[in-house]
């Protein structure tokens, strides 16, 4: 069941440039387990969209099936949402984007939804460079069916039943980079200060933006021996640096201690500042990103932060040269060639 929040809120809540308070970006009350990392991700989306002063109704949020795919219900309640079938959110998002290129598309998926049944659609939505944010809430297990390993579970990671996983994990960030994603990041649901700017940068990115968010399952994959438990991930995170998003209207300063800074200009003119850590690599270099991910993987750590970005990405509409006006808004005069053109066609068939 979805429980709706009361609409009243504290009158002193701060407002963004559009006059909205953060409550305007919330959704229904979550029915996920208390403490679920996915709820932290929803909160990060809410905060990011509020800070960016996005009009909530200009966002379309889409998902597949699973715990993660339930989360769009819990943020942006004034946006249209689409909870599709298992693993097939990318095709719905593609169709929706083709129909109306003017909206902001946020897709939420899980490791089961993306790395198993949806692997094919994931690969192809990356290839097509659909202008969207695709976020995987990755916990390495199936929560809704009580804890089976997913395809992102590490070899040797133990399930709640104590059974070791035998199979090689699918590393979604590496795959996304290899398939041609033009924005690839990874974060941890518990690291709001890294995740929020990363989401903001991804939403601003023109083209396909992918974020893999490690989000431990508090109920079925938070046991000793799991490599996606809270304790394990906290101990094995290696960050590329802190990411800060700076919209053109107003600069947001990071609360983090700054290290070395690299400025990256996004398509909409806004910039992201990368605060490199010791392990930092050139985020415009695909091979360097893959090497850095692999290096950390060898050490048993997750490399987080913005891992790769191509600032010159073209999206699907540019690739296939569709008109700037959303196809859904074309008028009958623009769509129907009329009887005269049909008569010419008839004549050509005689």
């Amino acid at each position, binding site marked *: 069941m979805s429980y709706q929040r009361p609409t009243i809120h504290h009158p002193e809540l701060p407002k963004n440039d559009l006059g909205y308070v953060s409550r305007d970006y919330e959704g229904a009350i979550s029915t996920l387990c208390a403490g679920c990392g996915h709820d932290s991700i929803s909160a990060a989306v809410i905060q990011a969209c509020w800070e960016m002063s996005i009009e909530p109704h200009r966002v379309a949020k889409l998902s597949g099936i699973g715990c993660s795919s339930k989360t769009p219900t819990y943020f942006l309640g004034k946006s249209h949402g689409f909870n599709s079938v298992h693993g097939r959110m990318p*095709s*719905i998002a593609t*169709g929706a984007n083709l*129909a109306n290129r003017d*909206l902001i598309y946020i897709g939420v998926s899980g490791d089961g939804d993306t790395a198993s049944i949806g692997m094919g659609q994931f690969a192809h939505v990356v290839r097509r460079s659909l202008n969207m944010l695709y976020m995987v809430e990755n916990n390495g297990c199936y929560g809704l069916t009580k804890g089976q390993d997913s395809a992102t579970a590490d070899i040797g990671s133990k399930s709640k039943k104590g059974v070791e996983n035998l199979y090689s994990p699918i590393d979604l960030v590496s795959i996304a980079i290899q398939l041609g994603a033009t924005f690839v990041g990874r974060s941890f649901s518990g690291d709001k200060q890294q995740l929020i700017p990363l989401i903001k940068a991804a939403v601003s990115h023109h083209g396909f933006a992918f974020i893999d968010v490690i989000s431990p399952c508090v109920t079925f994959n938070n046991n000793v021996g799991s490599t996606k438990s809270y304790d394990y991930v906290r101990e094995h995170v290696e960050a590329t640096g802190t990411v800060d998003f700076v919209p053109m209207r107003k600069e947001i300063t990071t609360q983090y201690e700054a290290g070395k800074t690299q400025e990256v200009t996004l398509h909409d003119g806004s910039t992201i500042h990368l605060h490199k850590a010791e392990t930092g690599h050139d985020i415009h270099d695909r091979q360097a990103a893959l090497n850095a991910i692999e290096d950390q993987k060898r050490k048993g750590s997750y490399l987080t932060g913005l891992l790769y970005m191509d600032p010159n990405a073209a999206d699907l509409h540019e690739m296939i040269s569709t008109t700037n006006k959303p196809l*859904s808004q074309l008028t009958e005069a623009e769509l129907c060639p009329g009887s005269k053109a049909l008569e010419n066609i008839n004549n050509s068939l*005689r």
Partner: protein
Amino acid sequence: MHKIKALNDFVIKFANINGTGSASANSMFAKAIFRMGIPVSPRNIFPSNIQGLPTWYEVRISEKGYLGRRGGIDVMVCMNPQSMAKDVAEVEAGGYFVYDSSKPLDIQYIRKDIHYIGIPFTQICLREYSDPRQRQLFKNIIYVGSLAALLDIEFKVLQDLVSEQFKGKEKLIAPNIHAMELGYRHAQENFECPLPVRLKRCDNVGNQILIDGNTAAGLGAIYGGATVAAWYPITPSTSVVDAFEKYTRRLRIDPGTGKKNYAIVQAEDELSAMGMVIGAMWNGARAFTATSGPGVSLMTEFLGLAYFAEIPVVLINVQRAGPSTGMPTRTQQADVLAAAYASHGDTKQVLLFPSNAKDCFDMTAQAFDLAERLQTPVILMTDLDLGMNDTLSPPFEWDDSRTYDRGKVLNAEQLDKIEKFGRYLDVDGDGICYRTYPGTHPSKGAFFTRGTSRDEYAVYTEDGAAYLRNVERLLKKWETAKDHVPAPELYAERNPGTADGVLFYGTSASSTLEALDILAGEGIELDAIRVRAFPFNQDVQKFIDAHQRVFVIEQNRDAQLRSLLLIENNADPQKLISLLHIDGTPIMARSIAAQLRKYFDSNVTPLRRSAKSAG
């Protein structure tokens, strides 16, 4: 020996080798007859193979305008030694067998009851051309030239067709015409031309056009306002999107920017194609996909979502012979049940049954209106026979005053006037609710689309009462649909008072109507109804009720439409008698007539009801 004599009324079949370039020569042959004003219906009978295997092209020529497959071959043009035994056997007694006499014909192919016309096509080519490719390609043109002499095709018509075909490649025109002349001269010098089977210009084509059903459907999608086509290639549906692309490139370029007012995406599979259509239609664009049986199987999960979440979808299913991979290049009407109940749970999908190219155009355009009006998938049930073969069709028409029916969609102003929007509220009592497009209004009208159960406000619920209200409303919508889908076509008035009726649909139409004419000539008169959509309009039930027996003609093994009539219309099973044709070839008038005749040969009771019972 008996010789078949026929003027403008015979069947000619070409036996070719797949991949040798015979297709364009054959279609030029058919088009020449069409341009002489003689109704013609050509059919490709081809293997699922790129090259090397036997392929046939069968042309029905019928001054009366019968376009269905008749059965029997009057003239066989045999260009493939591999299939010769079968090809010789198919010729009607007194018919003609045109073959390549460069080598002597083996004794096993000699029949005493048919006439042999040997033309040394290979030798002529060897003599005239040095390039092996030219030798192959021109052989086809040479036999067309020979047939022009043998059948009396106007040579000028062929010359014009060659000129049109090679427009832009002018240097190819003269060599092609020369090849045609080679064949023409050889036939004239060596045989009595024309044969007793021959052609003569008439005026029975009128202003009709020659077009295949898939192209017609692709054009229908353009006129219906489709902007998004997402598809995955599969025989025999591929040319639907090919045609859409060809004509949109001409007709839908934004004059200001040169950009496309449409998007075509070749998806990675049929699942994705259907997902894209759903996403696009959810978001306010008109979208469609085209596929065939195996693709429909893959799309069923999404079709169930679209049915339950009430999202318009247009799907063009060009049926082929199943099950499974079946016979990919052969025709059937065997997806009826799979499409009608596509997906799990209690699901019903709207089906349209086109019978000719004009139907493909009209019904595809109409499918978008229906899908948006009813907020549900609409599946056009065409097939390979109609989809991939050129067919005579009345010219397409479009009323410029016609506007698209976008269904119940609320805009921002309308939402402002509503206190609380409920996506699944049955405001009008017809089972159809109001929807909104994403991005319409800052605070009203947003809802969550899902395949899970929800209440009238689109809020997820597993409450049994809310579920029941929803699925029962969907049934009410189904009832509403009956008045929106195309009504059946009745042929009752042709035989008033007849006790028995024939029910048919889709591409069985032309052969069925011809069979009824054949039987009428023998004193067996039957009423007829052409079902054009599912759900069935009330007239279908009335027709069944009004007759003692109803023969249901179908091109599948399991009498699928009959099953649908029994399930949905509560028809009396004793009354509905199946006449089936399932070998993958288009159903033939002769076979329908023969099957029906059996019921009447042993039946001496009067075929007409009394005036009283006829009402």
